[in-house]
């Protein structure tokens, strides 16, 4: 996915096509949506998939798959609260009214939020390489460097492995 989506416009085209097929509505606040798209793109570059910017991803696809936008909680949240957790997607009612979506409660099960064995993840992580951006100091865990630094945008060549 990250191979052919490199800009917020491309990401929006992809999400819009999906939304048209499924009958989803986007938040009308374009500056709010643009902030979310920028964040989704950061996650896409950081993890390799556009996971929810309002929740913490682990970087492990299996643990994060429920969070890939539009997340599995989106449809129910839109029905129940009028918007998804991030307020990227809204209900038809909100879309057609002047009301603005608000911050809503978390629908992701607690065992997914905190039930992960953090010690276990650390053990898994220590088997991976650790990289540091020489420009801003951002640290990345993984067998390879990210395509570019998610924090400062430096190219991957600026990442050096640290031991």
């Amino acid at each position: 996915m990250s191979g052919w989506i490199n800009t917020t416009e491309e990401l929006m085209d992809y999400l819009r096509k999906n939304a048209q097929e499924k009958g989803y509505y986007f938040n009308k606040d374009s500056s709010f949506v643009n902030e979310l798209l920028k964040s989704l793109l950061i996650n896409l570059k950081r993890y390799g998939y556009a996971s929810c910017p309002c929740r913490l991803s682990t970087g492990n696809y299996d643990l994060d798959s429920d969070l890939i936008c539009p997340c599995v909680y989106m449809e129910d949240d839109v029905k129940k609260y009028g918007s998804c957790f991030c307020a990227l997607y809204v209900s038809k009612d909100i879309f057609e009214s002047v009301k603005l979506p608000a911050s809503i409660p978390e629908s992701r099960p607690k065992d997914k939020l905190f039930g992960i064995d953090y010690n276990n993840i650390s053990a898994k992580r220590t088997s991976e390489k650790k990289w540091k951006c020489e420009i801003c100091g951002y640290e990345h865990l993984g067998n390879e460097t990210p395509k570019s630094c998610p924090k400062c945008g430096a190219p991957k060549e600026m990442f050096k492995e640290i031991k």
Partner: protein
Amino acid sequence: MIKHVNGKNDKKSVFLYTLSTCVWCKKTKQLLIDMGIKYDYIDVDLLVGAEQDKVMKELSNVNPQGGFPTILINKVKTIVGFQPDAIREDLL
């Protein structure tokens, strides 16, 4: 990794668990700045490995229901999500 934001109003201690990518977190930070509240925050997604795990464990104690932003006031009270009315009521 904890960042400090200065403000004239330092009557209460205010600590935020946030994500650098979360738009509600950004709105919460901006509201506190507009209100002149002094606060500290940590962007959990920018932490790596054991350091992130440690902060997430801490957050699960502070706010068992989870979610960003979590605002911890005077080390006891929490406000979860972007809740401008609750924030104004508690901090002004």
